[in-house]
């Protein structure tokens, strides 16, 4: 079946540095992707999404890049803050309605 995965399970960055979290996907027909943030003990929260007809989308301190050629997307967090410490994972829709594949997640730790 299709899969969504992440390259690195953990990432540590210094406060103020930029963070980059990567995700590989295998369904070239997916027409959008979503990034979620999950803080310890909480449910996942939507961060940003990107449609397949875009290669970049910016939010507040976050940027998602999509490379359809290599089926890769990344989440960039600018000026990482301690509150950014969480697990981040990507998701893509399945072919059957309103269902998603979720990646396993990357744990981001921000070092003060």
């Amino acid at each position, binding site marked *: 079946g299709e899969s969504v995965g992440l390259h690195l399970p953990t990432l540590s960055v210094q406060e103020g540095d930029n963070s980059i979290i990567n995700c590989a996907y295998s369904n070239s027909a997916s027409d959008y992707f979503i990034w979620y943030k999950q803080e310890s003990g*909480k*449910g996942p929260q939507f961060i940003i999404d990107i449609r397949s007809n875009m290669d970049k989308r910016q939010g507040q301190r976050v940027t998602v890049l999509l490379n359809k050629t290599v089926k890769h997307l990344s989440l960039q967090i600018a000026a990482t803050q301690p509150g950014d410490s969480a697990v981040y994972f990507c998701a893509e829709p399945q072919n059957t309605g*309103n*269902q998603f594949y*979720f990646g396993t*997640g990357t744990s981001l730790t921000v070092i003060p």
Partner: protein
Amino acid sequence: DAGITQSPRHKVTETGTPVTLRCHQTENHRYMYWYRQDPGHGLRLIHYSYGVKDTDKGEVSDGYSVSRSKTEDFLLTLESATSSQTSVYFCAISVGNEQFFGPGTRLTVL
């Protein structure tokens, strides 16, 4: 949080006992989902519902059943809990292209 609550938030039970988890939403969303989250795995879909009395199986439905008798409530039942069902369970609703998640229920089966 899209008005999603889950109860209980924590539960410890013994193997072989029945367990029911409740998901409640206040915004009349049509689609509701139950996932489990385990180390080394992404969120895995157990069951989902696309309306009152309309449910379908997800990727890991064995050992679970669901019911949706009202739009606002989606119940997940473990008829006879096993240790492999120790997990964190999340309920979700979908709004357009997004899914919004509840706070989760941590279930431990001894």
